[in-house]
Structure formats: structure tokens, C-alpha cells
């Protein structure tokens, strides 16, 4: 049986993060690989496109120019089989296969790059005082010999690079002064000018170097020229190149550092609403810097700076101020991506700051609709990861898909608790359902792990339907926020919710239901179970009767073997037939209730009362799967909305059953019946000592010479199982009998 061996993916902690702790701040718009690693790379690729008169995609060009090793370029140049293979898999490689001049140029550039990187490596140390790397000399010479027009700029760049790396700065500048007027104004010439600026700097002509850097917007170079030991890096950058990406990236990384501290699971500063005091000042300084940059009109994207300022204010516990700054971000120039990020942030702040009202509710639903559009619109970013680990990551609130993470953060950490505070439990269930099931519903698949019968770990991808209806442990539906609510809220709220499924009362409810998991049987089964837990057996029968045949096979407690013991036995005995386990139990309890209520034979009524009390007790002890989905309050992965009610419910059932045992003994019309009941409950010592003249006592005395030992052993057996188990009933029942 596979199902009994299934394991959860995470072998050990961390088990759970609070949904609040999803990180919200997004520093930079998502960028393409080319833009991320090589400023100017895209322009360079486009220039290759033009120079080679090709329509090869930029990505293919990028891969060849920036990612392909020297050997592969050489293979293209030499027309080897490896080169042919490459030309079949990449459109630009195909161009180079037929364009020797271009292939030669790129090969030289790659040789130069490798030699330069060796020289620039922190590990480089020359082996002698007059060492000149031969390759760079050769590159410089070869580049200087090029007489063509087409790649003149490119060869000039390689000669400049090689001479610069050789620290031949004078020759570098002389060469540039000779050729620069002949070169076209393009990205390649700009690249070369950066080296020329560096060469001027190194020969001591700092003013000329600075002019070059300013014209080129080279921030690192500028900082190098302008640093005076006083001004900070960001101030220098802002003064001379306010729009440079480096400045924005720097601010982004600083805020991410503070945000990580704020939400760090060890310190949980978010619970107090502010980063620690020693970082508060840093955040305020950064926020002031952002405010200045955003407000001085020198940058093209003030939205980013306002957005960053708002987030820094939020991290220092000034959510209200953050909210008003965020409005400026949304109204300022910049990019749609920053606006989207700012809108997410505002949705979150709305959910935190605004009191619950019909107008807010309508506004919030509109916001969530927009956010849902982002989830769907960016799904390709997350589809694969959702399949691979979506169930696991969402189960412990591990961040992996920004838009869905944000929806969960807003809904689970803010909206649901507010709904509960406002006694809108049914709505809370609806929202939690969307938060837990929207993405999985969209993607429809997830990977699960289990141990097969040989003990080997097997991983497989299942559809959500297979996960829910198959034999494997369902790692999603019984360990998420929705289940936590369904399991812990008063059953009446869940009943209302299920009744309204399929007939939503508003467009908003329909929006939520369309994004949740709405299998009524799932909720009906939970409702029936909750009624058993509440000792409302008639109601349990009503709900459990509605389940399709064999439904219980889907439940994890069935898969783990916890729906098989005889609920009316005094010791652990397996039932021969376990289908409709909960329903059959509820029916039997209902029948016993009726028999006790209407029975006229006192002895029979007492026996049925004892049986009823036994079923009730067992339903929360050795047959706990009847009433619960976990063995104990501690046996849980999550704790979304406060501690579960496990202990409280269990104690109530035990208390009631104890009273019924007492009543059964008290109502016995004669000692013989009482002894028989006590005997059936296993109270041998009591029967033997308190009812010596009864038939039951005779049976005990006839079969057990060492009664005390027998009794002790039996007690130990029970005590080992449950601290408040049958032994306690036995002791109390004996006391009741003595009094009786």
C-alpha cells in the first residue's frame, strides 16, 4: 500500500513561515539576461544584426557574443563538425559560419577578453617585472592592422582594450587620437571611450578623464574621479549621474537588506512594526535620500524613489506616512512595473490601515481582481516552479511567485483576520480558499514524494484531481489556511458556506468561488466530522449521508489507517468492515440515543448508556480519526489563526462520556447488571472486590488467580496509551459503584 508510506516533502524544518512575512519590496523591474549583466549588450547585439545584415534574434546573437566559449567560435571559423552543429542550433552562428570576417573579429575579441580577464583577476600576479602577456600584444597588433571599414570600430575597441590591459596608457591615448575621428558614433565607440577615460586618469589627466565619464554616464568611473573621501558613493552618483541604474540598484539592495531584517524569522521585528532601533536611523536617512531624489526633478523615474521612500517609512513603523508617499509614486513618471509594485503595496496598506466597511470591501475586491490579473498574466514565470514545489512552498508560506505571494500575504495576514474580527466567518473561508487554491487551480499539477513499498523515495507529478482522489497522502488540502479555518470555526459557518456554494450571493462571492476549491463533498465530510466532535450525531448523519460512496478513501486519516478501529470496543480492535466509518458510527450513536431515551428496561438502558459513553470516549481517544484530522494539537504544520481547539474539544467529549458512565452505573436496577457493565468495561478488580457475589465476579475469580497482578498489568497497558484513557473511567466508575 503506497498510501501508508507517503511522506511529506520537507524532511525537517523550517516548517512554517507566517504569511505576513512574504517579502513585498521589489527593487528593480525584471530585466532580460542581456540587460542584467551587460549594460549596452542589447545595443551591441542590434549592431551585430545590422552589420551582418541578418534577422537572427537578439537572444541568439547575445548567446554567441557573450556566452559562447572561444573553442566554439574557433570551430565556426575553422568549419569543424562542432562548428556545424552550433550553426544548426543558433541563427547567429549560422551567419558566422558563412561570414568569415565577422567570425574572425569575434574570435579575436574573445581571445582578448580571456587574456584581459586573467590579467584583471585578483589572482593575477606577474611572474617577472617585464612580463607582457603575449596574447594581448598579438591582439593589439592584429587589431591595429585591420584595414576594413565594416568592423573598424570593433577592431579599434579591441586594440584599446589590449593596450589598456597592458598598461600602455600613452599608446592607448595616441592611438585613439589618431583614429577616433574616423569612427562612427555607436555603442562600440562608447565602450572604447571608457577605456580612454581610464587611460587619461592613469596618466594623471583627471580633468579629461572626468569629462569623458560625464559624457558617457559611467558612474563607477565618475566616482573614481570625484571621490574626495567625504562624499558618499550615492551622493557622488546622484550629483553626476542621477539616472544611472547603479544608483537605483544600490538603493534597492539596501532596502532589501532592511526588509530581510524586518521579516527575519529569528527576530520577527515585523511583529513590533519596525526594524530595530539601530536600523531605524539608517532607514530614515535612506528615506530622506529617496525623497530628495524623487522631489528634485533630476531623475526620469521619481515613481521608483517615492515607492522606495514609502517602503522605508513602512519599515520604520510609519505606515500612514508611507501610504501618502505611495500616492505620489502612483502619480509620478516612471515605469509601469514600478506602478504595479506600488499598487500591490497600496493594496496591502489598505488592508492594514482601513477599517472594514462596505466601501472598503468593494474597493478591496477590485484590487484583488487586478492582482488576480497579474497572477494570470505573469503565470509563465511561475508555472514550472508551481508544478515542482507549489504545494510544498505554499504549505509553509515559502515565497516563490511574487504576485501570488502578495495575494496570499494580503488575504491571509490581513483580510481574513479582519473578517473574523467582524464576525464574517463565511467570507473568511471564501477568501482563504482563494488564497490557497488559486495558483494550484490555474496550474493544475504538483509534484509529490512518497516511499514505495520497498522504502524508496519516489517523486511524481500529479494533477490536483489525482492528488485529491488518489491513494497518496494529500499534502495540500488538510494543511493550509482554508482547512485551518474549516476545522476550527464553529460548524455553522462552514454549513452556511457549503450551502451557498454554487449559488453565490453576489458577484464578489462568485469571483472568490471561481478561484477556490469548491468540491462540496470535501466540506461536507469536514462538517460531519465536526458534528461528531461536538457529539451531535444526528447532524453528523445528515451531512455524512450526502457523501458519495467511498469518499472516505480520500481522507488522509483513512490513508494513514486511523479509520479502522472498533469505536465500541474496550481495547484496540480492528473492524472487519470499515466503509462509511464515520457515518456508521454516527448512525449507531443516534440509534443508541433513541434507545436510551425511549427504553423501559432499566438494565438494558444502563447497558446502552455504557455503550454510548464508550463510543463517545473512543471517538476522541483510540479512534481519534473519527473526530479529528490530527492526533494532537501539537501535530500540525500550521497555525494560521490561533491555536486549534483540539484539547478543548477533546476534554469536553471526555467529560461528557465520564458523566454518562457514572449515569449508567447509577441507573442500574441491580448489582448483577452493574457488575456486568463494569466487567464489560474491564474493571475486573472493582467487580471482584465490590461485587463478590455476582456472576461476573465469579468469572473473574475463576479465571485469574493473581487478580492484583492482572489488574495492574491491564492498567499499565491503558495508561501507556492515553493518560486520560479507560483507566480513569475505571477508577471513577468503581468509586461511583462503592457509593451506589
Amino acid at each position, binding site marked *: 500500500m503506497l498510501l501508508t508510506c507517503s511522506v511529506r516533502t520537507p524532511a525537517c524544518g523550517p516548517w512554517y513561515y507566517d504569511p505576513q512575512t512574504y517579502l513585498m519590496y521589489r527593487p528593480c523591474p525584471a530585466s532580460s539576461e542581456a540587460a542584467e549583466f*551587460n549594460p549596452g549588450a542589447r545595443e551591441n547585439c542590434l549592431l551585430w544584426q545590422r552589420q551582418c545584415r541578418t534577422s537572427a534574434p537578439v537572444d541568439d546573437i547575445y548567446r554567441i557574443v557573450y556566452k559562447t566559449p572561444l573553442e566554439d567560435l574557433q570551430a565556426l571559423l575553422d568549419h569543424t563538425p562542432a562548428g556545424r552543429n552550433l550553426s544548426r542550433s543558433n541563427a547567429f552562428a549560422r551567419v558566422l559560419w558563412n561570414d568569415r570576417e565577422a567570425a574572425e573579429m569575434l574570435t579575436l575579441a574573445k581571445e582578448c577578453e580571456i587574456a584581459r580577464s586573467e590579467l584583471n583577476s585578483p589572482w593575477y600576479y606577474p*611572474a617577472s617585472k617585464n612580463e607582457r602577456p603575449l596574447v594581448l600584444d598579438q591582439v593589439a597588433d592584429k587589431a591595429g592592422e585591420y584595414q576594413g571599414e565594416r568592423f573598424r570600430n570593433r577592431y579599434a575597441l579591441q586594440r584599446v582594450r589590449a593596450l589598456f590591459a597592458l598598461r600602455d596608457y600613452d599608446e592607448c591615448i595616441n592611438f585613439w587620437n589618431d583614429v577616433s575621428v574616423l569612427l562612427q558614433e555607436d555603442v562600440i565607440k562608447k565602450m572604447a571611450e571608457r577605456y580612454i577615460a581610464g587611460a587619461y586618469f592613469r596618466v594623471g589627466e583627471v580633468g579629461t578623464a572626468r569629462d569623458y565619464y560625464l559624457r558617457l554616464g559611467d558612474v563607477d568611473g565618475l566616482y573614481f574621479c570625484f571621490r574626495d573621501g567625504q562624499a558618499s558613493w550615492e551622493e557622488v552618483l546622484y550629483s553626476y549621474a542621477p539616472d544611472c541604474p547603479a544608483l537605483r540598484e544600490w538603493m534597492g539592495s539596501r532596502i532589501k537588506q532592511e526588509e530581510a531584517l524586518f521579516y527575519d524569522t529569528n527576530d520577527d521585528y515585523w511583529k513590533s512594526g519596525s526594524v530595530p532601533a539601530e536600523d531605524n536611523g539608517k532607514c530614515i536617512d535612506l528615506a530622506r535620500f529617496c525623497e530628495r531624489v524623487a522631489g528634485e526633478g533630476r531623475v526620469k523615474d521619481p515613481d521608483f524613489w517615492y515607492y522606495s521612500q514609502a517602503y522605508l517609512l513602512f519599515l520604520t513603523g510609519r505606515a500612514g506616512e508611507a501610504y501618502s508617499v505611495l500616492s505620489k509614486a502612483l502619480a509620478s513618471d516612471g515605469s509601469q512595473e514600478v506602478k504595479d509594485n506600488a499598487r500591490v503595496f497600496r493594496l496591502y496598506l489598505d488592508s492594514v490601515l482601513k477599517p472594514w466597511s462596505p466601501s472598503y470591501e468593494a474597493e478591496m475586491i477590485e484590487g484583488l481582481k487586478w492582482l488576480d490579473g497579474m497572477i494570470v498574466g505573469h503565470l509563465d514565470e511561475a508555472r514550472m516552479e508551481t508544478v515542482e514545489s507549489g504545494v510544498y512552498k505554499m504549505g509553509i508560506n515559502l515565497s516563490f511567485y511574487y504576485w501570488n505571494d502578495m495575494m496570499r500575504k494580503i488575504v491571509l495576514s490581513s483580510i481574513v483576520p479582519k473578517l473574523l474580527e467582524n464576525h464574517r466567518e463565511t467570507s473568511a473561508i471564501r477568501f482563504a480558499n482563494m488564497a490557497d487554491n488559486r495558483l494550484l487551480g490555474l496550474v493544475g499539477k504538483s509534484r509529490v514524494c512518497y516511499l514505495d513499498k520497498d522504502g524508496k523515495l519516489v517523486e511524481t507529478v500529479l494533477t490536483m484531481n489525482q492528488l485529491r482522489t488518489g491513494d497518496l497522502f494529500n499534502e495540500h488540502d488538510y494543511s493550509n489556511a482554508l482547512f485551518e479555518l474549516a476545522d476550527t470555526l464553529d460548524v455553522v459557518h462552514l454549513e452556511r458556506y457549503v450551502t451557498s456554494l454554487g449559488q453565490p450571493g453576489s458577484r464578489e462571492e462568485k469571483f472568490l468561488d471561481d478561484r477556490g476549491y469548491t468540491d462540496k463533498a470535501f466540506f461536507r465530510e469536514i462538517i460531519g466530522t465536526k458534528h461528531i466532535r461536538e457529539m451531535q450525531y444526528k447532524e453528523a448523519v445528515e451531512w455524512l449521508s450526502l457523501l458519495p460512496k467511498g469518499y472516505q478513501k480520500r481522507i488522509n486519516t483513512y490513508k494513514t489507517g486511523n479509520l479502522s478501529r472498533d469505536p465500541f470496543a474496550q481495547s484496540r480492535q480492528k473492524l472487519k468492515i470499515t466503509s462509511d466509518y464515520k457515518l456508521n458510527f454516527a448512525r449507531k450513536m443516534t440509534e443508541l440515543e433513541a434507545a436510551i431515551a425511549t427504553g423501559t428496561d432499566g438494565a438494558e438502558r444502563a447497558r446502552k448508556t455504557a455503550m454510548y459513553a464508550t463510543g463517545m470516549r473512543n471517538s476522541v481517544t483510540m479512534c481519534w480519526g473519527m473526530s479529528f484530522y490530527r492526533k494532537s494539537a501539537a501535530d500540525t504544520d500550521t497555525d494560521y489563526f490561533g491555536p486549534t481547539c483540539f484539547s478543548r474539544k477533546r476534554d469536553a467529549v471526555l467529560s461528557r462520556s465520564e458523566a454518562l458512565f457514572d449515569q449508567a452505573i447509577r441507573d442500574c436496577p441491580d448489582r448483577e447488571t452493574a457488575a456486568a457493565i463494569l466487567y464489560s468495561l474491564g474493571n475486573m478488580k472493582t467487580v471482584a472486590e465490590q461485587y463478590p457475589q455476582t456472576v461476573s465476579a465469579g468469572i473473574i475469580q475463576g479465571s485469574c488467580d493473581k487478580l492484583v497482578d492482572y489488574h495492574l498489568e491491564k492498567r499499565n497497558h491503558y495508561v501507556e496509551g492515553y493518560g486520560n484513557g479507560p483507566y480513569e473511567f475505571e477508577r471513577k466508575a468503581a468509586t461511583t459503584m462503592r457509593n451506589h
Partner: protein
Amino acid sequence: MNYNVPVVSLLALALILPGCAGKKPSAPAPEPRDGENAVYYWKTRFDLDDSDMSFLKENDIKRIYLRYFDVDYEKNPVTLEEGIVPVGTVSFVSERPTGVEIVPTVFITVSALTYIRVHDLVRDAAGKMVQRLLNMSSYNETGPVREVQLDCDWTESTQETYFALCRAVREVLKGENAILSSTIRLHQLRLPAPPVDRGVLMLYNTGAMRDPSEKNSILDAGSVKLYLTGEPVRYALPLDFAYPTYSWGLWFRGNEFKGILHRNDYSDGSRYADAGGEGSFRVSKEHMLEGHHLIPGDLIRLETSEMQAIRETASLVSAAFPGAHSNIIYHLDSENFRHYTQDEITDIYHY
């Protein structure tokens, strides 16, 4: 710029950098050398003044273990590129003293070791380290490299990586006819010996520097005794022994350790007051010292390498490791040597 340049092998490096090619020292692999005086040099400028030269001559120093660079983990805060890099490379001002062998020594931080392990960079790191120190020796004309020493505070958890690194470095050095030695800290004595040719047992840093209740963290014979007595130490490497001659001031505010002060004279009564003897001083007047802001109430624990402790330690070492060996002084600094007579220095070398 392409950041994904493939790592070039040592062979390729030699081809690219012609200055490296054909420069292998021709000296044969040396036999273990016993009874030869040596000294560590642990500064970022190899700059020997007259008193240093006198020390080398008077004490017949045959080897200087010269720290060439540290290997540390580094992450660029702007580009976020990360890796292991050489830091604190020594710059050569003085030439190699005649008749003295320079032993390139490399300190490897634990974070570098961790990065090497996580990214499976043992061979790469070994190649880069050896190539660089060979180039440094060649460039600065420090003579043929006959030995290289690695220094690392490895523990059981980092032992596997350190040993793998030792094996890889030793393999590369075999081609250079050089041996590999490693420092051995006292706590490492009970662990397996690293796969190197020789070890140097560091007989200093025996206490907890940051603990305000510690009396002398540089050398306490009682602490050494704990490591050398009891179960007999049978170490699988020939060992040399390194003794300290340095001193420092350890600066505390309350119970918090604030830093190391290199000054070892706190006799200025206008700034410091004796704090109950045993070399402790209480700051009585706010002032700056070596870039640190000291305020009244701060405590400075002056620690020195006391001759008596060295003698006791040497006696323990002789009993535990009776074989022939060399002694090394940590480290060459004429300021420190002022606290010792020539006879005492001679004694240290003769233990």
C-alpha cells in the same frame, strides 16, 4: 563584459603568461630540516630594517615563513559577484636576505574554505594559490620555492575540505619539487593530521582573547598542558614548533571585547591607571588610540609572551615530542624583541 569566462587551467595560464613558463625551480625536494632557526613574518610590507637584519644574522635564521597573502571569501556589494580572492598581499620592499630561505605562507579563512567546499573548487583554488605564490616568488626574486606553508583554523567540520585542498596543493607542488607544510593548532592535535609533509605546532593563542576573565590569551602553559598530557599524542607528521614573542593590548568596555591595540606601553599616568595589577589598565581620560575612541572606564589587558610561560611550554613540548625539530618565532618584529634578552631568544631556539 563577459563575466562567464571559463576558468583557465594552469597549463593554459602558463601558455598565456609566458613569464610563468619554464620558471620551475630546479631544487630537489628537500629532506626534513631539523635544528634550523626560523621566524614568521606576518606584515603586509616585507621591509626589513637594520635591527631585523641583525636579528636574522645573530640568530642564524635559515628560513622566513613569509605570509604572501590571505585567501578569503568576497562578495562585491555592487555586482554581487562572489568568490575566493587573495587579500592583503604582501608588498616586497626589501630583498631576500642572503642565505635565508623564504617560505611562502598562505592563510586561508574558514569562510573561504566553506565557499571552496560548497562550490567544489578545491582543484581550482589549489591551482590559483600555487601559481600566484610561485609568480610572487619569481617576480620578487625570493629564490627557489622549496616549501609552501598553509595556515588555517580548520575544525572537524571543515577538515575534509582543508585536507582535500592540502592534497591538491601538494600535488601541484610536487611538480615544482617543493614540499607542503601546515600550521597545526593545539586543538587540531587530537584530529587526524593533514596530508602534508611537515607541520608547525602553533604554541600561542592558547586562551580566549575576547573573554574578559582570561589572564593571558597569548600563551598559558597551563592551557598547553591540557592538550599535551593525558593520552599520549602520537602525531602522524614531523613537527616543528612556533613560539610567540608578541604582545598586545586587549581593549574591553564592560564585558564587551572592543578590539586589539598594538601599543604595549600604558605607563602614561595621565591616561591610564593600574587596574589591580596583572597587566591590566583602566582608561582614565578620553582619547583616541590607533583609531579607536577610548573612554574613561575602559579596560586594557596588556598581554605579553612571557618567558616563563615559554620555558614551561617548551618543557611540555619536549616531553610530548622528544624528536629532532626546528623552532620558529612568531613573529619578526624588533619592537617585540626589545622585551627579551639575546640569551632568552637563543634559549627559545635551543629548546
